[in-house]
């Protein structure tokens, strides 16, 4: 049960309330979105949608509801909600920068400069207006490089522009005019100025970024799962630095691409990440690609660790993040941003299936039905990437001690034979339940 509980109310049942992990007769859910997630929730056996004011066991909420209501909503032990209260520590561009900088300093103190360099996956970023002077200093040190100005809290590519001359920034500051409509923001918006990666890896002359999904079940201890599928999003036009004003070239967000004049909705401009991995393997060999993907694992883990102490790790919360990664020509991955509400609207049939499977497996892991033992290393398309420590690929479940060389339990871009795996996973548990 959730929502304004009265004292003395025993719940719908006369007897002792069901324990957290016991299977429930039916699960009442609420959903703030009307896209793929709603379809998935409605199709899930034993899950029932509740109306406006009804009590719920599970809420796929949006972040604005969270902001307004989380602090004064009572939730029973078993209740689950799809966001952490202060996820913005990870997802807002100015906060993640702060947290990463702090984390990096901590590592440097504890483990030395070499270890600290592993945190250098975020392009140099300065908060505006508070760090304006630091930014100008850095700008002057590196003349000629391109910078990108991004609003901290907006998504889908809105309000972003590129610049090379300080004059452009000064003009913009003076104007006080933001390029897009501001119907919901009345206060002054914060921006960040970020170093623009000028040598992105190109395929077919086009720039692309990678969207990867990471599910965090708790921060303390840190438990995170990595989804095998994801995609590469291509810019519809050829990459060149001479066209800084061309919004369409530089931003690979599908939302922006959709408004480009030569956008063909049938095309989709996306590659499944398996295809990307195969392409890279054919071009550079398996070892190089292994290294690249291991570096991406590093990005996921370090970014989560950097906010581990700041995020309120409420056990009711879990969160599915969409990570945006850019690869440069030296095959170094960079973190562009982390999304707490990755788009669940599908742009094509294939995309719809990916998101359906992603969400189904997310719900399997949340495990409202109480079917799992908690020792699984793989559920559907998700692999357990971090469980208060690195997880190894070696045979055996989570508790097995690790010997020999360590291979991380991540399979990004591998074959996702989730149906088979789920069948094997749930069959023995299903028979156990009846006992």
């Amino acid at each position, binding site marked *: 049960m959730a929502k304004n509980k009265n004292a003395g109310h025993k719940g719908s049942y006369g007897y002792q309330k069901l324990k957290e992990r016991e299977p429930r007769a039916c699960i009442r859910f609420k959903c703030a979105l009307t896209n793929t997630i709603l379809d998935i929730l409605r199709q899930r056996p034993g899950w029932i949608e509740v109306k406006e004011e009804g009590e719920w066991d599970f809420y796929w909420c949006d972040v604005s509801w969270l902001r307004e209501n989380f602090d004064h909503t009572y939730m029973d032990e078993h209740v689950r909600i799809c966001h952490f209260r202060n996820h913005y520590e990870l997802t807002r561009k100015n906060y993640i920068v702060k947290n990463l900088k702090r984390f990096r300093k901590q590592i440097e103190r504890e483990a030395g400069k070499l270890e600290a360099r592993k945190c250098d996956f975020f392009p140099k970023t300065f908060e505006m207006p508070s760090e304006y002077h630091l930014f100008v200093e850095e700008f002057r040190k590196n003349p000629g490089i391109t910078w990108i100005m991004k609003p901290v809290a907006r998504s889908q590519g809105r309000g972003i522009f590129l610049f090379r001359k300080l004059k452009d920034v000064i003009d913009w500051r003076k104007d006080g005019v933001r390029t897009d409509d501001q119907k919901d923001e009345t206060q002054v918006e914060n921006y960040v100025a970020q170093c623009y990666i000028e040598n992105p890896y190109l395929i077919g*002359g086009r720039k692309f970024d990678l969207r990867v999904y990471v599910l965090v079940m708790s921060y303390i201890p840190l438990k995170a799962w990595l989804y095998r599928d994801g995609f590469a999003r*291509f810019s519809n036009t050829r990459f060149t630095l001479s066209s800084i004003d061309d919004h369409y070239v530089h931003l690979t967000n599908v939302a922006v691409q959709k408004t480009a004049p030569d956008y063909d909705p049938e095309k989709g401009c996306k590659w499944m990440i398996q295809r990307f991995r195969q*392409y890279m393997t054919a071009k550079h060999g398996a070892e190089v690609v292994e290294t690249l993907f291991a570096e991406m694992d590093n990005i996921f883990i370090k970014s989560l660790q950097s906010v581990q102490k700041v995020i309120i790790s409420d056990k009711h919360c879990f969160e599915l993040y969409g990570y945006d990664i850019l690869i440069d020509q030296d095959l170094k991955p960079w973190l562009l941003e982390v999304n707490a509400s990755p788009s669940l609207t599908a742009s094509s049939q294939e995309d719809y299936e990916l998101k359906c499977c992603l969400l189904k497996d997310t719900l399997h892991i949340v495990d409202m039905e109480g079917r799992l033992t908690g020792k699984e290393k793989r559920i559907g398309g998700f692999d357990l990437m971090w469980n208060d420590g690195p997880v190894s690929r070696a045979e055996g479940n989570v508790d097995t001690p690790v010997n020999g060389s360590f291979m991380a339990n991540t399979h990004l871009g591998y074959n996702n034979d989730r149906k088979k795996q789920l069948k094997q996973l749930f069959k023995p548990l299903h028979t156990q339940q009846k006992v």
Partner: protein
Amino acid sequence: MPAVGQIPTPQATGNTNSPLEASQAALSLCRFPSPCHPAAPPEHMKEPLVYMRKAQGSWEKRILKSLNSMCTELSVPLARKRPIGEQKELLNKWNEMGTDEPDLSLFRPVYAPKDFLEVLMNLRNPNYENGDQPSLKNHLGLIQVPLKVKDIPELRDYFSELGLNTGQLGIDDSTQVPPELFENEHVRVGQTVLTEQDSAAAQQYVRQGCPTALRAELWALILNISNQPEDILYYEQLKSNVIQHDLLVDSLIYKDVKLTASNDDYYFVFEDYLYQVLLCFSRDTSVLEHFSYNSATPPKSYIRGKLGVEEYAVFYPPNGVIPFHGFSMYVAPLCFLYHEPSKLYQIFREMYVRFFFRLHSISSHPSGIVSLCLLFETLLQTHLPQLFYHLREIGAQPLRISFKWMVRAFSGYLATDQLLLLWDRILGYNSLEILAVLAAAVFAFRAVNLMEVTSLAAAEAVLADLSTLKVMPLLQIFLFATVT
């Protein structure tokens, strides 16, 4: 672990232990044109059967007529020298020709695969009297010429390395199979083959599939492409030909790329490379050499005003190959493997003059499209007679559906990684027959659903999406695990 009974014992072939040794054994050398009697006239090397030659000749006349009438209708010359301004512009845009959006609405592809199928259906051997109505005793399919095709026992022998007891990439490298069982050793052997630069061994090796990381080099080794400075120079020469002259076929190429590859979910990224390859290909006169063993003959055109005067005859297009709808799909999968334009170009050209040309010319060659169609229909009729009869009854002749797959060598129909595994075997066996076997295997796989359809459209729908198929298991089951 995989289910018991499915674990292959890792060995290359029968008795031999490695491709290097096997290559010394009977491996058919690839020689073009095939050796034949010294007194054989040149047209016999192109195509020994007269009626096939005649049919090819009339087909060519039709294509040319279509091209010429398009030319007249649109008042576009077959070839034209570009003004300097235009040349400069094209040179600047060479790496992004895909951004160009010329008005191509009036251009139509010269022909589509289904037009070609109609011609093949009407092929008849005048020496062969087949007065009987088609019945289950003779051939029920669309192709009515008596060519010899292999049956399943012969195919098993021919494709012995695809057998159940031999390791394969595409099966034995799946995540369930421990890599020590086959994959690791196979990769090691592949690296040895590359170090030795042994082309014959490579051809033997790829019969079991190429590891992704080694494929580009192995194919180059088999096709004898080394990208020497003179090759790069030759490619640059072709490029300058493109810059200087505009050909009518260029518009056909543009249109084809825009209609097919650009709309493909995966190949759209390589659009620019396709122009860079195909425009140069049209101008490559070295391709004319392959017409000595191709039943087709390059169309001739005459300099304006000198019609019929042989001294003013030129081949048109310069390489003699008129592209049809879907032609660019021969190149698209290669973009996955080769990124340097001149190397990509040479690989494609070699693949064309060794294999792809057979898919759109009328000949009696065992890898020619006519034989492939007949092989497909015979396999289906022999091993799935009920299905074949049912489809025929509802007006859904199987070849009508599978023809386009075979003409394109399945490019654009299969997922790329599966397609490359299939093309590994084309190179390994130096034959296109595997395309017909795969087509039959696909029908066998979806037989249950096909038995329930009641129209051609419904049959097409069942077979519309092949992107989830895994080719090697399908081929193995069809060839080696089906009761005959």
